[in-house]
Structure formats: C-alpha cells, structure tokens
C-alpha cells in the first residue's frame, strides 16, 4: 500500500496497464513529454516511449476518431481530453461511432477506448473549465460512464475501464485530485494522505464497474451522490447531525440500481446530489429509478440538490456550487416531511 492522491492513483493505474498489456497506448494533448496539465501521465512517455504515450494535436474529434481506429486495430487506447468542457468536438465520434460500433457491426468490430477527462468545478475555472457533462454521456447507449470520488476507486475503476472490452468515459472530479473537498473553500485544503481511501495498492487491482458503494451507513435518509459531492454530502451530514446513509454511485452507467434502491427502501427518504445543472440532469434519472423501485417505502418527496440551471459563473462560484448548506437544507426538508 502507498499513500496516493488521485492524480498519482490515476498515473499508477496507467503505469500498471502500460506495463501489463502491450496493447495499451495513451494519447492526448500535452500527455507525452510534459505529462499532462494535471500531471496524470507524468513520466509515462519516458518509461514506455513515444509510440505508447503520444502527444496529439489540439483536436478532440481527431483524438477520439484516431483512438477508435486504434481500438479497431487491436490496441487499447486511453485518450485524455484535457477538460470535460472540451469534449464536445469529439461528441459525434463518441456518440455516433464509439458507442455504436459494436452494435452496428453486430459484434464484428469494436473499439475498447477509455476516455479520461477532468470535470467539475470549485477551481475558479468559469464556464469552460468547470462543467459536469456526465448526463450527456449517460444518455448514450453503448458507453459506460464512471466518476470516482477517491484515489483508491480512481485507480481500481480506471484499471477496470482499460481492461474491459467496452468504451468508457471516465470523469475525474478535478477539485478532489489533491484532497477530499467538503465544499468550504475557506477551510485549509486537506490532503488525501489523511483519508482512508488515499491508501492505494501499488500494483494491479480492480474496482468493478457498475457497482455503487455505501460510504456512510445511516438509518434516516439516503443521499445518492458521486464525485466531489460525496465529500460535500458527508460535510452536510456532519452539519445536520442527521443519520444519513451516503451512497457513492461511482458508475453512472450502467447504474447499480440494487445498491441504491436497497438503501432508499431501508431509509424511506432520499436526497440526490450532483454538481451538474438540475434540469434534465442525471439526478432526474436517479429520482425516477428510486420512485419506480421504492415508491411504497418513501416517507417524503425526493429532493434534488444540483448546480443552478445557468452556465457556470466565474465570479459566483460558491453561490452556484451546491455546497453543504444547500444539501443540509434538503436533508432537513425530507426529514420534516411526513
């Protein structure tokens, strides 16, 4: 075991896979010589050569299009899109090509591409460096969508993604790259070294896709969250003293309905939390699923806490960000409802 922050854990996952599987290649903007703007691929080109860790032109559609061709030719490409906010030029290649190649060719062709991309706000990134577009991808049949909330899961889930035969869009909440963030920007940063999930095996291990995890057991209400919001939800629970159960969704698609609904059926109350905008957001899918499965166990209307339905505003980040106070208010509301 070693102490790792999330960037080191991701780097370790790619290192392990480059070592184990000659088919694995890394490509993306600045990922080679420089090691990535967030340092996730640091040292990998030096170790594995420039045919396996490739710097690319600034062209997300080209990166993903080329990765699909590489995948179809037997490689396992791991493409980095520098910010999730920049993924849209590659959207057609993801939605129309990557997600459907296996289906449209009845299994004769496929491209096992993993797309890593930092997402989320809280870093003063404004509207072009803060987005959480997971719902856009969750809506696409044929890709798996993942968002880890800690270094251990980040490494284990990334290895599972690369080893799998299906395309994966792997969102990395960049606000928690260096440490868990409880939603209060004025507090001093906490490093991952003080967190149990900052303890990560150095070698190969996996965390399975499609499995959520209960990160805090509780009796009164279930909070369904993922990414940075898992930690913000924990802060809100501490704030209110409500005995909430927090479920880290981890894999957005395919969704682990059983773990989520077992929790909600037990507690009878549910708050859904995400950074992304509310309308048509992934929370709507969670709420609908919970309603279908747990309706007769519900004691109160389900609450959603999400980013406001505006673009991400630079100057009003902390009014926009669904922080502990808003989650706490939702928790109190579901507890008051009868």
């Amino acid at each position, binding site marked *: 075991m070693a102490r790792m922050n999330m960037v080191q854990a991701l780097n370790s996952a790619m290192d392990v896979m480059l070592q184990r599987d000659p088919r694995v290649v890394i490509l993306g903007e600045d990922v080679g010589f420089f090691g990535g703007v967030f340092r996730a691929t640091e040292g990998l080109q030096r170790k594995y050569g420039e045919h396996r860790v490739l710097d690319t032109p600034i062209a997300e*559609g*080209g990166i993903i299009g080329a990765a699909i061709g590489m*995948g179809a030719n037997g*490689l396992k490409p791991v493409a980095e899109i520098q910010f999730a906010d920049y993924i849209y030029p590659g959207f057609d290649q993801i939605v129309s090509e990557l997600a459907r190649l*296996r289906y449209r*060719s*009845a*299994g*004769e062709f496929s491209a096992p591409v993993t797309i890593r991309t930092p997402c989320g706000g809280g870093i003063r990134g404004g509207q072009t460096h803060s987005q959480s577009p997971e719902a856009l991808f969750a809506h696409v049949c044929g890709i798996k969508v993942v968002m880890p909330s800690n270094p251990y899961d980040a490494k284990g889930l990334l290895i599972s993604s690369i080893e799998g035969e299906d395309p994966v869009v792997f969102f990395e909440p960049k606000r928690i790259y260096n440490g868990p963030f409880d939603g209060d920007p004025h507090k001093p940063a906490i490093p991952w070294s003080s967190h149990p999930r900052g303890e990560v095996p150095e070698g190969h291990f996996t965390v399975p896709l499609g499995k959520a995890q209960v990160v805090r057991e509780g009796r009164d209400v279930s909070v369904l969250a993922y990414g940075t919001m898992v930690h913000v939800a924990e802060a809100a629970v501490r704030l209110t003293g409500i005995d909430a159960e927090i479920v880290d969704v981890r894999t957005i698609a*395919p969704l682990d309905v059983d773990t989520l609904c077992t929790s909600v059926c037990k507690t009878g109350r549910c708050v859904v939390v995400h950074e992304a905008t509310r309308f048509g957001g992934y929370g709507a899918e969670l709420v609908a699923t919970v309603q279908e499965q747990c309706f007769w166990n519900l004691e109160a209307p389900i609450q959603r806490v999400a980013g406001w339905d505006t673009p991400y505003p630079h100057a009003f980040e902390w009014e926009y960000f669904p922080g502990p106070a808003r989650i706490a208010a939702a928790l109190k509301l579901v507890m008051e409802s009868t």
Partner: protein
Amino acid sequence: MSPRSRLHVPSPPARPGQEPDFSYVQISPAGAVGRPDVMASARDTEELSLQMVRVLGDDNRAVGPWNPHLEPEELQVGLRHMLLTRLFDDRMQKIQRQGRISFYIKSTGEEAVAVAAGMALTPGDMLFPSYRQQGLHVVRGRNLVDLMCQCLSNTHDMCKGRQMPIMYHWGSGNIFSISGNLATQFPQAVGWAMAAAIKGEDRIAASWIGEGSSAEADFHYAMNFAGVYQAPVILNLVNNQWAISTFQGFAGGEHKTFAQRGPGYGIPGIRIDGNDFLAVYAVTQWAAQRARQSGGPTLIEHVTYRTAAHSTSDDPSRYRPKEEWRAWPLGDPVERLKAHLIALGEWSEERHARLEKELEAHVTACWKEAESYGTLSGGPSLDPLTMFEDVFKEMPPNLARERDELRALQDSGVAARPASTPLAQKG
C-alpha cells in the same frame, strides 16, 4: 459610394433546363503528368495536385509514366468487378422501387474509384469506405447474397437488422463498418494506420470520403493527424461533383482543387481522372508503396461524376440538368476500360454481352437466395429480442430487464410482430 462587402454564394454552372457546362473541370492530356519516385518529398509532388493524372487517352490506349502495365487478364477482372457492381446496383435500385427494400444508394459512374483502388491494395489492408464504395466488397470477393441480406434486414443480415440498407461491414474481409454519419471514417482510418505502425505491421489503411463531406471537421482531423504522424494511410476524396443537391463549389472546390489540400498538410495531393481505371490503379499503387515504406499518407482526389441520384430518396432532376451526365467530359469508367481492352484486342462486344448476361444471371440467383432468408414482408425473420445484444460485450442488468420486458409483452400478445412491416422513407 463607399465599398461594401458581398457574399459569394456558389452556384453550379447549370440548373434544370439549362445546357450542362463542365468547362470548369481542368483536364490534363493522358500521359502528360510526371510520376515522381514513390519516396519523393511531399514538396516535390505539389504539381500533381493541380494537374490530372490520366493514363487512358481518347484513343483508348494506355500512355505515359503512370501506365501500370497490367496484364490483360487483370484488366478483364477489373472490368468484371465494375460491371458486376453496376448490375448489382441497378438490380437493387429496381428492387427498392418495387418496395422490397427500404432504401438504396448506387455507385453508377464511380465504379473505378472503388474497384481499381481495391485491386491495387492487398487483402490485409484495411478499408474504411463511405456508403458509395460497394465495389470494394465486390473486389474482395464478397458474396452478393450477404450484401442483399443486409439490405433486406433478414435472418442472414450481417448487421442483425440494426442498420439501414448499404451500411455493410466485413470483418474477415477487412472492410470497416459504414456509418451514416459522414466523414467519421476518415480519422478512424488514420488511427487504424497509426496502430499498424505502432505494432510494426506492413498493413496500411485506405479510406474514402465525398468532396461534400470533406467540409466536415473530421476531414481536417484526419489530414492533420495523418500528416503529423506520417501514418500509413491512403485518403481518397471522391469528387463526384454533387453532394445531394449542392455542387462541389459548396465544399470549396471553386477556389482550389481538393487535391491541393494535401500539400497544406505536408501530404502529397494527387488529382486524378477517377473514371480512368488505370489511373486510379496506378496512383493507388504509388500511394500504397509509399505508405508501406514509411513515406506517409497520400490524398487522392478522384475526379468523377455521380451519374446516379444521391439515393433512392433523391430526385436530381430538381436541381441539375436531367442529361448532365451525358456531358461529363471524363466519360464512363466501364465503357472506357471496355474500349481499352477492345483496342488491345483482348475483348469484344460479343464477349462483353456474354459477360453481362452471365453477371445478370448471377445477380438474379443471388437475389433468389437472399429472399429465401426472409424479406421485409414475409418469410423467416430476425428475433427482435436480439436488439438488446452487442450494445456492450456483456449485457448489463438494465438491458436484460428491458429484454425481459419486451419478451413478456410478446408472450402476452401485446407486442406481436406485424405480418408485414410498413416501409418508411429514409434520407
């Protein structure tokens, strides 16, 4: 008066009712364009993007440095493939008009672009076609029954009923799956070629794109990636003058040749007579040799004409002169190769008629067999429950639940399959 800006909105030289005018097509005499060494620097090939490589002259003789000196038997095989492609297209169009398939796209007049290029490559090379290169399947010996079954979405459909007609693929034949989204195959072909180089193979990739869809960003991605990494790939741009109703000027063809885009990316751009079987063969061979020797990619602009409608859903008489194809200055690829073989004393009208009859009968027999595997209106049909397969390698729980839901609906009679599926008109 102060100057003011004005838009230039391109307009084709002739609209319905007007005289066809192809004076804008710059044509070099056959044999006039030099053939550089296959490893020549891209800079030294720039002239090729402005001229037009032609081998077959007006006297039906092969001339000049690009003459590939093919044996008569090879030429006869090429003629056979092109003719079979044409007869297959004609039959499928008729079948669509009879309502027996929902949609079709012909390649009439452009057969050489696929057939000659396909013949100049080796079977291990990976092909990424657009939807108008069915000749590639013919060259590689695909059973026409397979293609017909795909168009019928029947029990032998390679796509298991998931794609509209003509979106073929062939894993063991190294022909990639056709997408309905334009241009996406271009950067994929480059990525495939990059992987071949990373793995140290000598296989190369080739892709085809229309001049119209070269306006998509994917064309730029592909050219840039191919040029940057010097990937072993042949990028074919089929300039058939028309993208549904918009003529090639809307893709930028009024100002520069499409081949001229090659040098802009450090890639040789070669403009060729796309209806000249020998020119297509020779230039493809040149580009393939170059790619295999780490010389990098080549852009080939095939100047040709879309004699057919865009698709069975299109009516070109609404936007171009009805008989425009007759005025096309580069003639017809099948007729020109036929005339060349006759000029060589290796073919005759009688043999041609005999071949045509033989191929017609072959197509008829194939269609008969294809229909026995099911049609849109009857016979054996695919199990709709297979629609849940192949979304992922393993079926996730949500899809298994949906499959069970549909099965239950079928079992209860709610979702019984109608005896005849109505045909929808598709773009």
